[in-house]
Structure formats: C-alpha cells, structure tokens
C-alpha cells in the first residue's frame, strides 16, 4: 500500500489526514504527535449523552453500505439497562469496489482505536471487537501492536485515562466469506458459528446482538468519524455535508478512469461528473462513458445518458423537481437514492464504451453465486441460476427469453430472503437488464 497522492483541491482529508503524510507511521508516538487521543481525553470531560447528541447533530451516516444515521442507531442502546453491551467494528470490507477501511486498519490503527474508545464510553461498552477480513493478512498484527501500545499508556485496559472506565479491544479475523460483512452474519461468525445471517426482527443488533446482548455494529470509517465530530464540533462537521448527510465521505473509484483511487470529499461537494472527469482525470483517450456503479457492486447501475428527476428546494423554499443528468448528480446519500440507486459504500466503478454489459453483469452474478450463504432457497438457487443464464448468453448459447428470465429470477429473490444479500444480488441484474435492454437482447439472439 502506497501513500496517497497530494489531495485534489476539492478534497478535505480528515480521516485520511494522517495517512496522506509522507512517512506517517502507524505507531503511537507518531499518532500522538498528530493530535492523537486528544478527543478520547475530551470525551471523558463530557457526559455520554452529550457525545451521542453530538453524533446525532453531526448527521453522521454509516459508511458501511446502508447509510443509516449513526446517532439514531446509538440511541437504541439504553446505557443503564444493566446488560453488557458490545461494539463490533465492521472491517470486513468485501463489497466489490470498496478499498478504504483497509487503509485505516493498516496505516492508522490508532485513529480507529480512538474512535472505539469514544464510542464505548458514550454507550457504556467495555468489550469491543474489530472484525477484519482475513485476506488483510498483516492487519491483525498491526492492530494488536497498536492495542498493546495503547494499553501500556493506560488508554486501553483497566481504568483508562485514570477515569475508572475499563475497555478491552480484540481483533477477530474472518474466513474469506463476503456474507460476514452483513452485520448479523458477522455476529454469528464472531460467536464461532456458521455465519448465517439472523432472521429479523429484531432488526437491529442494538436490541439483540452479540451473545444476545445489545450490540452496536459500525463500519471502520464510521467509527473514525466520531473523533472528528468531537474535534470540529457537530455543527462545523455537519456543515461540510448536505442536509442529513454530514462530514466527508471517502469515495473509492475504480475501473475505466485515468486516476483510480480513494478521494475523501465533503459530502455533496462534487457531482459525479466532477469526480470522474476532473478529480479522476477522466477516461482513457478516445473513450466515452457508458455506465457507473455508484456505491459498490450491489448498487443499481446508472447509464451515462440517464436523466433523473430529483426533488430540490427551489428559490422560494418549496420543493421542485429538477431534471438531472448523471454527470450533474450530486454525490450524497439522498441524491443517489433519488436517482434510483444508492451511495452504499461509496465505491464507484466506472465503465467506458469498450465494456460489454452482459460480461460485466455476468462477472457480478458469479460473485453473488459464490458468496450466497445458502440459507434461503430463493437466494441460493436464484443467484446460481442467474449466473448460469448470463454465462450462457455470453457464450452465445442464450435464448431470446433470457433477459426477461434474468429479471424474473431477480424479482423473485429480492424481498424474499433473510438478509439484504438478496437485494444486493438482485439489483445488478434488474438494473443491467432494464437499462441495457438492447445489448442484452442482442446477446441473447447471438448464436
């Protein structure tokens, strides 16, 4: 992993502030020299409820995929219910297209630990696990070294910061299965069982989570933001973003652009066009834009020439509907949702006019076919079936009815399964076949 290039003028590196520096090392002394643990100390001068109120007022939304308001989630925990509470940090980072949490885990582990300390103090949690994907083979040792350093300083363990508060943090490695990123699967995995997602309700692990106790599951990036909310204050933090979606968001751009990479941008500060053509240096010479997956492979694909009707407050404050082209789409959770997709994990996969959409969908179908946990029949059977159909279309063995068949299979998965993998696996097929209908029809007719 290399250091990030100099920031684009539109970027504001808060989470990636430290790792942008040449020779930034993941040890405690370096972190302390960069203002490390100042906000953890500050947290202990605040009331837990004040911290939760700050996170709510900051409009922080989860960075793991669902963009759920973090303060609201935290509000489900009753600090004084007498039960043990747990924090599980989601570092599974396996949504295709996403590559930001690993940077923090490997290069700035203390920033994550500081976020964990503040979160645990706010929610009366004394045991936290960092769940990481095991393909990050060096991350466990890096994190455990950081934990040890923090312990020696009295920042973790017993009586931290001399405040009479105990907190233990451990690192738990997964086993190479995408489904473990789903929060209830993660909990089962952490309990040592087959990681089958749990049946809902309860909808939130904050009600029944790890070991059947109230548990907060948050993404690595989400937890890091907490420090910066305390540092900047909720109003300045919220102001960086748009209404209901505060702060910065790390966008991961991959695929057909000149400068793929991570870009930490104030939420809503740029449009999709600016991100791709300005910040990422545009497409390869002679190429034109064909499609964009805006929020990880599970989000619905957007076609380059699509025009969305997006509601916006007009000059007089009343909501007006505005026609918006893909390149003018503002990158915040609300706008991307209004365009019929989602900001998800902010993983933008760009495809130019050289790409075959049947081929691209087939690649994703194979991913979902491999990763279904197999618990629900519509998902287990459906994802494999979709993958077989797209594979045969690609090989010139398709039937004219295949595009419709694909769509129907997807329709019969979404909404009929135990976990949101069902939707995640259906949305690509539904959106690709709808938006590139001609290309699918042509492929199906090819013998």
């Amino acid at each position, binding site marked *: 992993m290399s250091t990030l290039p100099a920031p684009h003028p539109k970027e504001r590196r808060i989470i990636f502030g430290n790792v942008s520096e040449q020779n930034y090392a993941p040890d405690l002394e370096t972190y302390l020299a960069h203002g490390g643990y100042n906000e953890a100390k500050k947290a202990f001068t605040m009331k837990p409820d004040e911290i939760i109120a700050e996170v709510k007022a900051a409009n922080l939304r989860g960075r793991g995929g669902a963009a759920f308001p973090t303060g609201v989630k935290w509000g489900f925990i009753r600090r004084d219910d007498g039960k043990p509470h747990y924090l599980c940090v989601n570092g599974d980072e396996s949504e295709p*297209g996403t590559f930001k949490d690993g940077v923090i885990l490997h290069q700035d582990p203390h920033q994550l630990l500081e976020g964990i300390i503040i979160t645990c103090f706010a929610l009366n949690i004394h045991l936290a696990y960092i769940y990481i994907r095991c393909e990050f083979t060096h991350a466990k040792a890096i994190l455990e070294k950081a934990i040890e350093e923090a312990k020696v300083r009295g920042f973790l363990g017993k009586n931290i910061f001399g405040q009479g508060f105990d907190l233990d943090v451990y690192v738990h490695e*997964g086993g190479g299965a995408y489904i473990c990123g789903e929060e209830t699967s993660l909990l089962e995995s952490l309990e040592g069982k087959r990681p089958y997602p749990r049946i809902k309700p309860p909808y939130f692990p904050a009600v029944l989570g790890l070991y059947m106790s109230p548990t907060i599951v948050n993404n690595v990036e989400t937890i890091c933001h907490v420090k910066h909310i305390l540092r900047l204050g909720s109003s300045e933090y919220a102001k960086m973003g748009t209404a209901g979606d505060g702060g910065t968001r790390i966008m991961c751009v991959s695929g057909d652009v000149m400068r793929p990479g991570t870009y930490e941008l104030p939420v809503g500060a740029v449009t999709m066009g600016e991100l791709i053509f300005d910040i990422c240096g545009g497409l390869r010479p002679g190429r034109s834009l064909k499609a964009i997956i805006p929020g990880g492979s599970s989000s619905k694909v957007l076609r380059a020439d699509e025009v969305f009707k997006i509601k916006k407050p007009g000059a007089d404050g009343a909501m007006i509907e505005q026609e918006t082209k893909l390149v003018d789409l503002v990158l915040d959770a609300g706008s991307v949702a209004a365009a019929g997709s989602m900001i998800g994990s902010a993983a933008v996969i760009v495809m130019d006019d050289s790409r075959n959409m049947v081929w691209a969908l087939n690649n994703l179908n194979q991913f979902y076919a491999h990763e279904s946990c197999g618990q629900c029949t519509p998902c287990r059977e459906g994802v494999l079936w979709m993958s077989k159909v797209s594979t045969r279309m690609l090989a010139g063995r398709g039937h004219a009815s295949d595009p419709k068949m694909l769509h129907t299979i997807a329709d019969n998965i979404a909404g009929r399964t135990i976990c949101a993998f069902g939707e995640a696996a259906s949305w690509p097929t539904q959106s690709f076949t709808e938006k590139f209908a001609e290309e699918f029809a042509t492929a199906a007719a090819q013998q």
Partner: protein
Amino acid sequence: MTSTTAIQASQIPPALLEKIEEAITHYPVSRRSAALPLMHLWQNHFGFIDESGIEWIAAKLELQPIAILEIVTFYPWFRQTAPGKTIIRVCRTLSCAMAGSYELHDQICKATGIDSEQGHSHGMPTSPDGKFSVEFVECLASCGTAPVCMINNDLVEKVTSADIETIVAQHS
C-alpha cells in the same frame, strides 16, 4: 468422526499451544468464539486442518467436532488438504477483471501446469510438482490498483504479465 489418523494433533509445538491459550482469553463470554482464531492459528502452522485438528480444536473449545467441521467447510479460506508451496490468489471480481485478471490467471495456470478451467471454478488446484496452488478469489479490497494478486500472505498490486513471469520463476 474417529481419530484413527491423529497426525497434526500429535505434533503441536509449545509456541502454538501458547498462542492458542492466549487467543481463547480474548473471548471471556464464550469459548466457542475462539473457533475461527484457533483454525487460523492451526492452518498458519500446519498449512491445512486435518481431521485430528478438527477434533482437537473442538475438544479444546468443549464442542462436538461437527461444530468445527461445519465452519471449516463454510469458509473459503480454510483447507482440509495440503496446498502447494506457494499460493497465488488472483482477484476475479469486476474492477480486476476489467484490468485483465482473467488473462493473468490463465498465464499463471499455463506457467505452473495447472488446468485453467479447473482454476476458474473456485477451489484451489495445485500444480503437478506441488509447488503452486492457484485460486481465483473475490474482491480483495484493492480495486484502485487493479489487477491484484496475493502471493502467499502478500498483496501485489497493478500486476503485469511480466510480474507473473518473475513471481513464477522466483517460486519455482
């Protein structure tokens, strides 16, 4: 399951045992939670988890062997047979595929004598000389530097065809 073939379980070095005991302390609420950590420690040491390993880990955590077997078989990372000396994992997912990872996979298979069709389904075919195992894996969270591979425990980014030649030569 019967332990007629206790091999790995009879060869646990003290250092591994120490790490195992330490890992169990990370889960004060439930010993069972130490299942994955113990499997990782075991596989890191022995290269795979044999039947005796499954039974030993289960006994250590006060579980039936099936409780370990059912997770060994669920997770792609764990193996019940020995892999080749060098494990090459090629990312198969969209951003890497767009950057040519299927071609790299084919090249590796050809260079190591592995049937590439076999390699296209998941699972880990091993070269006839036992030197390489090659596996197609899903997104490795490094899509910005596609295509990527893992050579044993190390990630290699922006892999080129020339890189593959070097890697295969180095590990042959």
